């Protein structure tokens, strides 16, 4: 083996060493980043879970949203009730719902469980 080959061999070894170091460092950095990321996420989740203000906010927002959805459904169903009723009554040539008398006041009171003003 001449001097040139020895030099090339040394260079090759050095390159291989550097490649191996790079591979190891990549694995280390990946593990480090993963650990840091996980700990940060866990910490932030714990902070959010322990914070009473956030608890309160989620509760009120959830209840508010549910109430809004229920109210909207009720309003739309009442609209649909009247709309279909009016169309059908017009087709059957019956008096419109608005022209008909409402239920007796006692019944209304029973339904809403409060006093109705006449």
């Amino acid at each position, binding site marked *: 083996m001449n001097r040139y080959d020895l030099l090339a061999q040394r260079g090759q070894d050095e390159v291989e060493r550097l490649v191996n170091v790079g591979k190891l460092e990549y694995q280390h950095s990946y593990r480090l980043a993963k650990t840091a990321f996980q700990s940060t996420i866990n910490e932030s989740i714990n902070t959010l879970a322990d914070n009473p203000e956030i608890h309160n906010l989620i509760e009120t927002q959830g209840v508010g949203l549910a109430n809004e959805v229920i109210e909207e459904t009720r309003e739309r*169903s009442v609209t649909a*009730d009247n709309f279909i009723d009016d169309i059908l009554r017009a087709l059957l040539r019956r008096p419109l719902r608005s022209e008909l008398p409402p239920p007796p006041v006692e*019944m209304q009171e029973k339904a809403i469980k409060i006093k109705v003003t006449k």
Partner: protein
Amino acid sequence: MDIEDNKRIKFRPNLSGHYAGFVSRLIAFTVDLLILSIVIMFLTWFVPTSISMMQLRPDELIGRHFPYISNFFELIYQSFTNLGTTWGIFGIISIILYYSLFVSFAGQTPGKALLGLRIVPISGQKISFNRAMFRYLLYYLSALPLGLGFIWILIDDRRMAWHDKIARTYVLYAWEARPDEQFLVKVISTMEESRKKLKEVTSKKSKGTETDQIK
């Protein structure tokens, strides 16, 4: 903007305590059906699974002491571990109990409570368990002639279905029933648009046939 909103709210009719309509009642019924189906599905899975997991054999246990009735308990055990029979038993019992208990205690089922409806007897007295059960069984009468008994809500002046008429009950809005005007405007505008489109299409077609005839 605020003044307009106030005006709109002021003129919105409050139908609180009035007869509840078909759509509200249909949605409430659907909600009840959904709740019931979830409960029944859970029960039909839970009961046979728990019996087979715990390896409970009441027939063997009782059969040792009372051999003459062990066959009866074996039959019960087999029925409870059989999905079809359990479905039948729990289904029927839970549906009847669901409607009768909720109506007799609160005057409304969870579905009706969600939609803000309440069942009020014409007599003014509190609705009893038996009457609530009777009213529920009358649902089948309303459903029998292709649901005509339910559709009767649309025709009747007091929005009473057949089961309401026989059980002598009203179904009334138990909340400040306000119609959503914006939704109504949307529905009417979409209907008008579709009507216009239909007119355009028919006029184009008629023009096309006229030109064909001239040619």
